[in-house]
């Protein structure tokens, strides 16, 4: 099988063959013909194995794909011309966004442009209430007027979202029938089919996002499938969704908004595999690129998710991996503000001119310049020697823009910038972990490629995290993650009732109906019925609380509702999250959820060979800044690409790889584990906390 992650600049491949060998590959992405880039990379892989693409693909049973087609359309505002039908009187909900102004103290802040302009938001005269009762019948004249307007404007997609359609979908279904008949070639999303969940704004926004990207995803996947089939591929194509689950193309096409984090969702999946190999079930994941730092989490072996998320500036309520981005990357610019404060980012020098040390004309000091001046990067061995760094412009940039204004030495200024960058990274990671009610001191940090491993151990020290894991394949991290994902199908039904009104029969029936539907979908995607795992959960809260907590509900409780049992479990969950429970308070149910999962056989992470000697031979030494000690000292430098499993070394050390450089502070030991990951452990840390 093969995992293929299409990013903005590269297409990454991770191949896992029948012999249990893993191979990775990277080709530049050609935005105008992504399917072509994929086919090219496949041909390369075939050639590397001495065969042709047809034979290679013919023997491939599974191809897992993460695509940025949907994401890019949203981020660049290049989705389809979409119309929206809403209940009369509510068509501006999409644009009003519940009144939010993300930057309340910025009087020049502009809201994101609505994905459907107002003239394409058309009212349908009808009304259903919270209980699903009809207050006003569907007025067919208003529907016909809307259909005509959609035709006149030649829309490519339509979203339908009517008030309380989660409680009764009768009107939405009638609208959908009429639309499908009148606009047969138009992509249509109906809110009660996509997301029958209370919360009008969330549902409108999600339904619109779905239609906005749907036609693009559809045509891309159809063309990719045809190219693959034409080249001899007879196996199964699965697409990764935003919740790191795999779906067949025909299942994800009508739920295109579920593909909005198709690629990045694999990061915590990969991370949990590497963390698992190192004995931990929880981990934080950082991936530091040129302009920003992505942060995600896995706990209990599962990626952490949100059900009220955002892609770009647009809200979606489909389950998705919680990924946060902060402006801290290799190109982030350091400066002194008017109050004498040293700040780094969010402005970035990007790739051009890039950091001053790239010698491409950049004159402002960046994170990478600082890393160079602190002795972490070897100017002659950056990216394995593929690019030479120039210390002089870096030094000049730091001197002029940081050291002189602060009246300190260049080294001290570089140290200051490094500490500020790390503090920002640490705060971002910490905010993420505490938002999920987890403890940083009880989990390791898994680090993707780029500049991350230069900073990760220092950040871990700041947060009291005991371990840092840098996988050998960190450059194609997400492609590897795709090989380890499961088939997943998520369902939700709103069921609004307070404790005493909860009807055991309806409770059981809703769960059962969702389980049947999810099971059927997974079986159609090739899962065996007996391997489908059904996970029920309920979004609950105390009476009149605003936010729900999602409580896992086991099979017995889903089948046979025991209010007291449910209450006790919710109290315990609330206590765990917020420090108190309210056993006397009535419960309210809001949504019931079912996730059907079919675990695919997990490949074993290939073991790398061991070296004869446990301690590797140093490549040399270098003077570098020692985080935590506030001083410069000699670091032992190692070349890491040839290190086999079982190698051990002690900080202070620098391990240079072709893809990245690891900084090992004095208080860390390094062990190369059997998967080839560099596992940095803090000496004297309370190790027993890890993996609990």
């Amino acid at each position, binding site marked *: 099988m093969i995992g293929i992650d299409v990013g903005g600049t590269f297409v990454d491949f991770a191949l896992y063959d029948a012999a249990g060998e893993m191979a990775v590959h990277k080709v530049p992405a050609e935005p105008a013909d992504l399917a072509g880039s994929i086919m090219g990379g496949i041909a390369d892989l075939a050639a590397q194995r001495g065969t042709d693409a047809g034979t290679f693909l013919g023997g491939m049973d599974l191809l897992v794909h993460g695509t940025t087609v949907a994401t890019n359309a949203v981020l660049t505002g290049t989705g389809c011309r979409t119309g929206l039908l809403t209940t009369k009187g509510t068509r501006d909900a999409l644009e009003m966004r519940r009144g939010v102004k993300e930057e309340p*103290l910025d009087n020049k802040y502009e809201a994101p442009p609505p994905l459907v302009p107002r003239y394409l938001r058309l009212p349908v005269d009808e009304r259903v209430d919270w209980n699903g009762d009809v207050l006003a019948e569907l007025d067919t004249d208003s529907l016909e007027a809307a259909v005509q307007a959609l035709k006149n404007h030649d829309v490519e997609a339509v979203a339908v979202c009517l008030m309380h359609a989660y409680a009764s979908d009768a009107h939405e279904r009638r609208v959908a029938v009429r639309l499908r008949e009148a606009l047969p070639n138009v992509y249509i999303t109906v809110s009660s089919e996509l997301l029958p969940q209370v919360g009008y704004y969330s549902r409108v926004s999600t339904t619109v996002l779905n239609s906005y990207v749907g036609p693009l995803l559809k045509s891309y996947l159809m063309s990719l499938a045809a190219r693959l089939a034409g080249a001899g591929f007879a196996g199964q194509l699965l697409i990764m969704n935003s919740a790191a689950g795999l779906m067949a193309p025909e299942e994800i096409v009508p739920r295109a908004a579920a593909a909005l984090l198709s690629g990045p969702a694999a990061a915590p999946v990969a991370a949990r595999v590497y963390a698992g190999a190192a004995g931990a079930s929880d981990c934080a994941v950082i991936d530091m690129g040129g302009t920003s730092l992505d942060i995600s989490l896995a706990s209990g072996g599962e990626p952490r998710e949100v059900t009220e998320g955002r892609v770009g500036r647009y809200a979606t309520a489909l389950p998705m991996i919680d990924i946060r981005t902060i402006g801290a990357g290799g190109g982030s610019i350091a400066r002194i503000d008017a109050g004498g404060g040293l700040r780094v980012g969010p402005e970035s020098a990007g790739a051009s001119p890039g950091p001053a040390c790239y010698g491409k004309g950049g004159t402002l000091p960046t994170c990478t310049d600082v890393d160079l001046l602190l002795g972490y990067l070897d100017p002659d061995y950056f990216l394995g020697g593929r690019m030479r760094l120039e210390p002089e412009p870096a030094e000049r940039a730091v001197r002029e823009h940081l050291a002189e204004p602060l009246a300190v030495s260049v080294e001290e200024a570089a140290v200051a910038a490094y500490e*500020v960058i790390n503090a920002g990274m640490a705060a971002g990671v910490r905010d993420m972990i505490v938002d999920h009610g987890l403890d940083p001191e009880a989990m390791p940090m898994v680090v993707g490629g780029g500049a991350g491993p230069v900073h990760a151990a220092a950040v871990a020290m700041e947060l009291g995290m005991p371990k840092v894991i840098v996988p050998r394949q960190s450059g194609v991290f997400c492609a590897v993650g795709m090989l380890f994902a499961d088939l997943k199908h998520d369902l939700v039904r709103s069921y609004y009732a307070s404790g005493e009104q909860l009807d055991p029969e309806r409770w059981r029936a809703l769960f059962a109906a969702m389980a049947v539907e999810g099971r059927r979908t997974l079986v159609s995607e090739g899962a065996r019925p007996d391997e489908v795992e059904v996970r029920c959960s309920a979004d609950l809260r105390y009476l009149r609380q605003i936010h729900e907590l999602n409580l896992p509900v086991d099979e017995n409780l889903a089948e046979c509702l025991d209010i007291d049992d449910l209450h006790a479990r919710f109290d315990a969950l609330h206590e765990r999250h917020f420090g108190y429970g309210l056993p006397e308070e009535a419960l309210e149910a809001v949504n019931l959820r079912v996730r059907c999962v079919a675990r695919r056989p997990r490949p074993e992470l290939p073991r790398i060979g061991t070296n004869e000697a446990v301690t590797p031979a140093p490549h040399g030494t270098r003077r570098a800044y020692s985080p935590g000690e506030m001083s410069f000292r000699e670091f032992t430098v190692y070349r890491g690409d040839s290190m086999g499993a079982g190698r051990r070394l002690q900080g202070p050390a620098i391990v240079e790889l072709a893809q990245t450089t690891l900084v090992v502070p004095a208080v860390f030991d390094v062990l190369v584990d059997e998967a080839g990951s560099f596992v940095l452990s803090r000496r004297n840390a309370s190790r027993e906390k890890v993996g609990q």
Partner: protein
Amino acid sequence: MTLELSQSARTVVFQRRVKSLTHEMARALYRSSRSPLINNGDFALGFLDARGRMLEQDEHLPLMAFSLYPGCGYLMDFFGGDIHDGDVFIHNDVWCANLQHADVGFYKPVFAGGELVAWTACRGHWADIGGAVKGTCNPEAVEVHQEALRIPPVKLWEKGRLRRDVWELIFANVRLREIVEADAQAQLGSCGLGERRLLGLLESEGAGAFAANVERLYDMTERRVRAEVAALPDGEYSGESTVYQDEPGHPSTSRIAVKVTIRGDRIAFDYSGTDPQTPTFTNASMTSTTSATLTTLLYLLSPEVLHNHGLVRAVDIHAPEGSILNAQYPAATFMGNKLCQHTGEAVMLALREALPERVTAPWGRRLSYRMTGKDPRNGRGFHDIFFLTYEGGGATHGVDGYNQPGLMGGGNVLAQDYETFEVQNPVHLIEHEYVTDSAGPGRWRGGLGTRTRVRYYGEETGGSTHGDGTLEPSPGVLGGGAGTLNRVEFQFPEGGRRNAHAMEIIPDIPPGTVSIHDGGGGGGYGPPEERDLKRVDEDLRNGFISARAATDIYGAVVTADGSGVDFEASRRRRNLRGRGL
């Protein structure tokens, strides 16, 4: 050799650490509170230093941003040496340095090594705090005693023990007790969490370094503010705004006047000339006026300016005692915070010639509306504030006004979701849409006004309005036009209809009544005939402006079918008009 980490970095790192702790406190409060008020972000929390000065906070409502430190200073003066580890103080009294009685604060001293090193605090809007009217908003109040239970700083916990007598005294005076008690628990929990985390930070930094970092952080912030002020043109600038007290029977107006003086790196706001306090509930405490002034200043400075004591001490603010901006006991003050819009407006108008590219045209004045009653579906009480009745923001150079409460009227407060609103209240939301031609016209137009139409089916339903904007709309600046008025109309099932005043209790809203609440648009910026024709065309297509406005106000020519702008003909027409033809 050990390096001295530059003080600058040390201080920035320290600030980032403390900020992250306030984030965790806010998350705990936000997720565990029960009333829609706190839950929608009507709170501020964070840390004060050992002297009660503002160190770091997480504020969701901009106006609340500066509400924590005055109360802390007051209580430290009052209790002197009688502050101990394990104490928690509760406070709401406006006359002991609060913004508003409904914003109830908790203060927990943090001790390390037997020394007071800092405070953790949380102030949030309670759904009720006693007084004559449920929900605490009493437009008929003429003095504080008709408004709320006054709690000067009192120990709620003493040396680690809850004072049940004090708890009962307070909650015996509070309606909606179960909701409010849960919010109080959530606030206490948040303070306790903040204390634990801050002690962890102290342990890793050392108490001496902590105290030094606090001082350096203020210095750094003050220098930053002064550097930005120094770049503003020196001078004395005056502005005004009129407050309308639109009450049944005795309408009145009050004038807010400000003189902004910029000299070098100093900026001063002097509200001398402002009218006296009123026998209504629209009076601001000095705490409220200070907060409003600092918030307005932040709009004019870089968004990077940190909100701590360094900012506070870089600015001079004066409002005469006994004026509507510095009211004295026993004035009623519930609506005092609404004056922040007027102080902000007066400041912006004062500076419009001096800082034309920074100022914002007046924003739609907030007209708030709340309802209470009994829900026939379950027999329980309901209470909600209509956060969704948005007025438009004011326009600024380069950007149209924000369509929702942009400036201090709102910010991060999340308005009700329509479906959840109907699930939780016995009402049907019939309409919630932008209103055509509501925005103040301009080269950049104001934010749009909104219409909210609701049908009631609850029992014993009552409502109350409180706000402004029913008598004078938000004006435009530098050639821009005014937005529309606010208006609340009730249509009764028996056939009668009437408009509510901006401050009125509507005691009886029978089932079947429909209310129409129009939130007005914000003021425009610059002459409308200079507006980019592409924007005029978009506004016309989207129904944000009418064909008539496009023609008469924006000087455009509309296509024959009325759907858009005829660009060529419009340019010709504007050229002719520009030459006075």
